Each structure stands twice: as structure tokens, then as C-alpha cells.
């Protein structure tokens, strides 16, 4: 049995159209993975930077997995929401990235996008906020349906993860 420790933090976000943001994240692993300890999903606070353009969350992630193979290596999935002064929250971006395979500390950038609707919806979104959302995130994981989406590039979510591997070399895995 090999084990993986993922320790790190979701640092923050940049390049989004607005600065008052929060992020919902979850870590997804394949079928051969078993969560031993830690939480695999969470939500950050709403941060509105007073100075600069970097929304800072510093949200901790600490998770411990046992696995029977590298297949289905954990993926992190983030959803960034904008929280405005009227208390409304609207989707700003979806993003996916792999947790690095090699042990050590890694800086990750997750580039996000949002789905784009028709002209009428975009018009409405521009003035009233809101906008369209994905019905089910799972459909996006199964990449086959992805091509039907029209999206717009949004900002970047920055993350930092330290990965510790245990017992992988015992099973002929090169690290």
C-alpha cells in the first residue's frame, strides 16, 4: 500500500475582473484511492483586497490518501465566485488541475474559464450579474462532452502544494 500526503494552501487569485472573490474547491481521486484523513472539499472566505490586485485566501489543504496505483491521481477542482456588495454571488470561473506527481513543493497555477451564453444572457449578465452555470461538474470531468462548451477566459488561481510519497519505490515506481 502506497500513501500520498498533500499539504499546502490555496494562495489566492489574480487577473479576475473583480477582486471580491471566494473559492470552492474539492479534490477528486480515482476509484483505487482511499482517503485516510483530512477533508477533500471546502470553501474559502471572501477576500476583498484593500491594496493590490491579488485576492489572498491562504486556505489550508492537508490530506492523506492511500492508493493501489497511480491511476486516478488526485485532481483539484476550483470554482471561483464573485461576491458583490449587494450580497449576490455569481460564478466567475471553473478550473481543474492535477496535483503534482513528484515529491517536493510545487507552485501551481490553475487557469479558469466560465461558460458563455447567448447574446441576451451576456447582456443580462453585464447589467444584472448572475449568468449561466454548469449543470453538473461531473460532465466536465468526463472530457468527452467538453467540446460543446463556449467559454471565456477568466483569471488564475494560485496554489502551493507539498507532496510526500511513501512506499512508491517499493512497487517499481520511479519518482
Amino acid at each position: 500500500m502506497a500513501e500520498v500526503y498533500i499539504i499546502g494552501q490555496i494562495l489566492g487569485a489574480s487577473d479576475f475582473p473583480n477582486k471580491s472573490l471566494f473559492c470552492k474547491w474539492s479534490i477528486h481521486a480515482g476509484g483505487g484511492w482511499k482517503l485516510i484523513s483530512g477533508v477533500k472539499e471546502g470553501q474559502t472566505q471572501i477576500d476583498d483586497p484593500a491594496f493590490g490586485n491579488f485576492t489572498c485566501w491562504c486556505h489550508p489543504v492537508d490530506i492523506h490518501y492511500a492508493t493501489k496505483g497511480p491511476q486516478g491521481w488526485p485532481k483539484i477542482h476550483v470554482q471561483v465566485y464573485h461576491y458583490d456588495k449587494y450580497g449576490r454571488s455569481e460564478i466567475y470561473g471553473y478550473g481543474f488541475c492535477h496535483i503534482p506527481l513528484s515529491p517536493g513543493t510545487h507552485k501551481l497555477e490553475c487557469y479558469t474559464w466560465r461558460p458563455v451564453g447567448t447574446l441576451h444572457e451576456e447582456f443580462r449578465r453585464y447589467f444584472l450579474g448572475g449568468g449561466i452555470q454548469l449543470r453538473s461538474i461531473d460532465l466536465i470531468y468526463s472530457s468527452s462532452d467538453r467540446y460543446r462548451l463556449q467559454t471565456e477566459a477568466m483569471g488564475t488561481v494560485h496554489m502551493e502544494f507539498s507532496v510526500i510519497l511513501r512506499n512508491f519505490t517499493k512497487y517499481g515506481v520511479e519518482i
Partner: protein
Amino acid sequence: MFYKNELDFMPGVYKCYGDVQFLRFKIRLEIIKSSMISFSNVEEQETGLDPQYNEREEFEFLWNQKVFSPREFKYYSDVRNCSTPVENEYYNEINKLISGGTKSLTNRLFTYTSKDIIPIHLHKNIFYKEESCKHSSQENTLSSLFQQRLCVLNEKFQDWSLLPVRNIIDYYPSDELKMQNRSLFFNCETMYIVADLSDKSHNSENTNINNNEHILVTIKWNKKTHTLTVVPDFTSLNTAGYRIDVDMLSDTRYVYRYWLLNISHIEEESRIQKMEKLKNEFVTYRTNANFTLDFEIPFKNTINVFVFVEIQKATNFLCDNLFVQYFINLPSDWTAEKPDLLSGITQLCRCGNIENVVTFSYVFELKLTKTLSHNIQNENDISEYNWPQFFFEICSLDSWKRFRVEGYSWLSLPASSGRHKLILNTWRPASISQKDELKRFFIGCDPVLTDFTYPGVSVNDNSNLLSRYGFETISSGSIYLELNIMRQIGSNVTASRKCSHLADRKVTTLMNSVNYILEAFKKARQRMLLAREPILLHTGI
């Protein structure tokens, strides 16, 4: 549809400290023919216990208890209809009931539990009161549930087009859904209590009964937050109950009233709950401490290469609204576990508030297996050195549906494991004449490579020189990639020199160096013996 008493028709949300298994509730359903109801019914029915009912049914339900409708009873009692494990379970249950001499437990009331297949569009009807739903005449009916289920059952025989086309985007997210999406991930078990409100007197079983299935109560249990949501809320018998009006074809009008009573025992809960909790804690502790997972080890003489690819973004392309198409070419001795992932296409993306950057964050993983053959004697055989190649094509599709190829790129799979950040620069074939350039600009017709693999090293070409002289290209933007590679080597991959190009294979290199030292030692010994011979001769020993 529902005529509510002001006091109680609200979704009830309960925070429960005990386990949901202790939930017990009772439903009383009364059926009243329209001729017996006066129009000023609201005041009259305040007492609740109206003696004017034609038919009354009461049943006590447990959480997630499956109660079969007469129709399901008939359906599942036939083995031929049961293929999945759940259906087989139902079949066995029904057989037990039949052998016990009982028929269906209830006349009209039945349930759908979380085990049952509830199709996506029905979910939508139940949860999201969208505008489209509001217009539909049959609100909250389970009309097509059975047809849906039959479709799933007989999908081998049925046309796929009967199944609803999956729609990825929710164009009108309801307020409820928005609230749901922005909070943490929902993990609910749902149970529906449904009543079959068909007109039994007319014996119309063969007609479309499904239209008459009405959801009386929806109960949701969220394991994580320990909340129970009951729609509509529990009532007492003193109230008028909830009411459904149904118009029949035969000009009669039926009114159905029902009450939902909570009859779970609280004292009992706390004691058993403590026991359960202790037991659960013990079990989880034991499973966490003792479980083992057998690590998968590749077969002999094979190498598994796990590739986790992430197409992150593309920058500095001329046109907006881009997508990436990729294709992976495997040499003959490589196999992929899921060959359909060897080619793919990302979503369309246009620039946001930063210019010339489009994001994809498209992730996929591949499991590639390389077989090491020992039969090949010729060390110079090229096929041994072939390595998987990635081909990328980046295209744009604008609002006028003009399609342009923006660039081609190529990548050989990195040979070392670990994390690789790559930036691929792309080029596209140049137009030969001014006319073509204008064509490209106005109608989006441009020269395209006929061979997708041309950017890479052509495998079949036997010529000694890879020449592209005379081929004009224009360089365009770049694609940002991140590759994570992990290699796993089968237990006894022998130390053959053929594989030594896998530079950092620790086992191989170690074995090689040991062999090398042994060989060097042998040579040195022979040399020493040769050198000693003349000396021995001279001394005459």
C-alpha cells in the same frame, strides 16, 4: 396544485442529532369524490376528520423503505425484467411477500428510494422550479418515469435517441440552485412518497397510469450536516391536510387529502443512537487501522507510463475564440488502456479581460504500457527507440463560423518522470499568394496540413535526412502545457543494453555497472595471467 393550510405548508428543515434510520412517519390518504364536496370547503374541513371520504389508506414508512406500487409489484415479479442487482433484490423481496401470502402492502401509496433510478429530467422537475416547468401542465408528476426506466433497462434494444440529450449548461439556474451551488457540495439521499391517483373504479390499468402518479412527500437527508428536509412539512390530524385535485376523463373530479405524521420515538433514539455511535466509531477505527490496498504491479517485461496532461492556456494567437485538438501517436510496442483518450478536443474559449490569453484547464490522464521485447537481436533496430508523440492543432472558430487553423505543434513524450512545464511554440503553413492571404482574412479558408503527423518525426520515412526545405510557415502563438509523468517498471525487467536509453532507470543502470565491473575484472585477470606466463617459463617452474 396544493391547497395549503396557512399554518403548515412549508418545507420543514430539521437538524437531527440521531440517525435517520429511526425516522418513522405515517401517511394518511383520503379520497373524496367531487360530488360530495361543496364549494365552500375550506371552512368545513377544518376539523380534519371528515367522514365523507370514499376511501382511506394509512401506512407507516421507515426511512428509505421500499414500498412497491401494484404496478412495480407486477413488473418486478417477472425475472425477465430484473437485470441489475437492485432489481434482483426487489425480485427476491417480492417473491418473499408472495410466498408469505401477502400481495402488495398498499393500495395506492408507494415509495421511490435513493436506490431507484430517477432520471435526470425528473430531478429537474422535482427540484428546480424553472420557467419551463411552470408552463407544463403536469407539475410534479412522475409521468415518464416508467418509460424512462424501461429505456434504461432495454437500452441495448432501444434507440438511443429516446434518452434525453444531456445538456451541460443550465441556462436558467433557479434561485434555489444558485444557493445550492454556492454552498458546499450537496450530498443528499432522497426518498419520494408517491401516490397512484388513478381511477380504480374504471379498471383502467392498461392506460397511461403514469400520468396519475403524484409525489406526496419528498424527504431529503443530508448525511454531512445531519439535516432532514421534508417537503411539505409534517402535519397533525387536526389540520385540513394537503389537497390534490384530479380531473378524470370520465367527468368526475376527485379530491385527495393527505396528512404526514411524524411518529418516531425520541427516547428510544437517544439510547440506541449512543450504542450505534460507539459501534460505528469502533468499526471506523478498525478499518482505518487495518486496511491494506494491494498495489498494482505491471506484468513482467513491461513498463507502465502514467501521463497526466493538462492543457492550461494559449497565448498570443491572432484570432480569438480558440480550441485545441490533440492527438497522440503510439509506436507499435506501446498500448493505451483507454484508446479513446488518445485524441481529444477542448472547449471553445475566447479572451477575457486579459488580452491574447485563452484558458482551457483541460485535464486528462493516460496509462500507457510499453512491452520490452527480447526477440529483437539487432540492437540498431529503430522501432525500439520510438517514443510516443503528441500532436497539437490549435484552431479558431469565430461568430460567423469561420474556421481557421492557427497553429501546429509537436511534442515527444518526456522520458523522465516528474513534473514538466512546457511551452509549445506553434507555426502554421504560409499562404502562397496574396489572394490566399485575403481569402484567409475574409472567408477563413487557409492552407491546412493534410498529414496531421507532419510536424513530428515521421516514423515510416526511411530517408536519412529530415528535410522541410521549401515549406514556408508563419509562426504564431504558444500553448502552455503541464505534464506529470510517472513510470512503473515490471518486476523483472532484465538489464538489457537495448533499454539503456531509459537513462535514469536505477535498476538497469545498477545491474549494468555490476556487469561492467565483473567483465573488467575478468579481462584484467586474463591480462595478468598472460603477463605472468613468460615469467613462469623463464623461471622454469
